[in-house]
């Protein structure tokens, strides 16, 4: 069972692409951030307008007479509406389908054919947003449709996808001693009998170890090291080599071996 819906399509070059859809949680989270930013922007705007209201009334009061307050209110509302619409349309067009909220949450709007979203699609999505927000209609649509589309997505022909692969980028450091051991492993052990998914597990362990609690880390590294030892048929781990150091060396050796082939 997969936890997240995916979306597949074929490019004109017959290449099949698969995206993980954003999911309701990410979309709600991104919207919360965007609405918080919008609220701050709109409050600042209203404060500015009210602090300059006397100047505006004295400038236009003669021409508009008694209706000046009504006019100001109408203009204020209209500009506020454009800020609300413009925020989403502007950012999604300029930042390739992302608003600040979506960028933070790492999701992105794309067109149904996988191409980047442009002004017409971003505007349509923004125009239908109030309707989707009404009584949470959009949330129901996203939850019940397989392609997780709200009304704005159906009309604009767009999808919202997750940006990152589950693995993320390798951002961990390896010890110097691992380099030397890796060279030894390359010549003495059968590194290539490791499968790509085994390598992914080792890499994941090295990436996540800093966050783990020490006891669990020791147990896990020991168990992984024993299993890897069996796979690469390397019987003796030299004295003083910790399981984590061994796993670091295996990681390096596999990477190097992969590059050589």
């Amino acid at each position, binding site marked *: 069972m997969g*936890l997240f819906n995916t979306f597949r399509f074929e490019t004109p070059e017959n290449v099949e692409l698969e995206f993980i859809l954003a999911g309701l*949680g*990410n979309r709600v989270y991104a919207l*919360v951030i965007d609405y918080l930013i919008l609220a701050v922007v709109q409050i600042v705007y209203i404060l500015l307008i009210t602090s300059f209201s006397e100047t505006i009334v004295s400038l236009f009061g003669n021409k508009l007479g008694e209706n000046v307050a009504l006019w100001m209110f109408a203009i204020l509302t209209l500009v506020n509406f454009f800020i609300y619409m413009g925020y989403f349309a502007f950012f999604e067009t300029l930042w390739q389908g992302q608003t600040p909220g979506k960028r933070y*949450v790492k999701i992105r709007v794309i067109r149904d054919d996988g191409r980047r979203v442009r002004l017409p699609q971003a505007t349509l999505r923004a125009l239908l947003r109030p309707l989707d927000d009404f009584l949470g209609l959009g949330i129901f649509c996203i939850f019940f449709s397989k392609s997780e589309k709200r009304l704005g997505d159906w009309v604009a022909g767009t999808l919202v996808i997750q940006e990152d692969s589950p693995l993320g980028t390798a951002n961990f450091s390896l010890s110097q001693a691992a380099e030397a051991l890796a060279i030894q492993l390359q010549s003495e052990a059968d590194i290539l009998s490791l499968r790509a998914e*085994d390598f992914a597990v080792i890499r994941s362990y090295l990436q*996540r170890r800093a966050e783990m609690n020490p006891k669990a880390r020791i147990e*896990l590294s020991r168990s*992984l090291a024993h*299993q890897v030892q069996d796979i690469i048929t390397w019987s003796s781990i030299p004295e003083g080599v910790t399981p984590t150091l061994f796993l670091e060396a295996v990681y390096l050796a596999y990477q190097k071996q992969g590059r050589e082939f």
Partner: protein
Amino acid sequence: MSSPPSSRLAVGPLSVGNVVSAALRLYKDHFKPYLGVAFRGTLWSVFPFFVSFFPLVIWAWLYQVNANLAGVFGIVAIIAWLFFWGNCIAKSLTHLAVLSRLSYQTLINQPETVKQAHQQIITKRWRFLIVQILMVVLMFAINVLLRIFLVEVPIRIFGNITSNLGGFILIGQFLSWMLYLWITSRFFIPEVPLAIENNISIINSIRRSWDLSKGFAWKIATIILVANLATLPIYILAGIPLVIGFVATVPLWTQSYDLSSLPYLGGIASLALLAAILIFVFLNILAIPFWQSLKAVIYYDLRSRKEGIGLELRDAEFK
């Protein structure tokens, strides 16, 4: 074109949004069984109140025959009912725990049926009750302490210095809310380890919630916020009859009604209130599996981060 759900199981740490999405997904994929468990769990929690009707009738009858006997019966009946009530609440809590266990087992690719999960944890039902009681007492005590130290004490101290206390009260209140939210997040999953792990004591289960969530309290708080917002629309539905009821009573309090329409308006308001309560109970049953799944996903995510569960090398071939 959209594809069927991916065969890949998302292993490893999940983001805030993905935790909520995963919980929704687990619920959606097992909608009927999960809803059935939530329904039975809710029935167990209200069952004692229906049953209490019978001893009340007997007591009323005895009271007319012999007041002393009725007194003795009353005391015995109250003790028996309290025990019965505790047992029913324990069973209700066990049903909630079953939901978390089912979700967790699905996450680790060892799915169980409702019956299997229930059999695994039904013997722990009194422990679930004690965990719940301890948590209620603990959170109440924390709330009182926060109120005393962050609101009442500063008022006494600064009250002697300045008469303008608004700012102090506001800051104190805000700090106490933030701290309460932080502590709630640390104690968000006290029953989940008990439902999943073998040979775990009550205190250790609560401690597991505290230990696992160390460094992740604000993430859990954000998850709770996003989960609340994602489920908000279904609660809005419950509010619709309330709005109708409220609108129906508008002529009453604006005093622009004629007396002949009073029963009619009152009828609409009462019906609306009844409908709102029924819808709210139904929606609550609908929401229970989501919240229990969410707890399971949080537990999975924290274990994955802190203990590296899911990091296994082709385990089947080695064993």
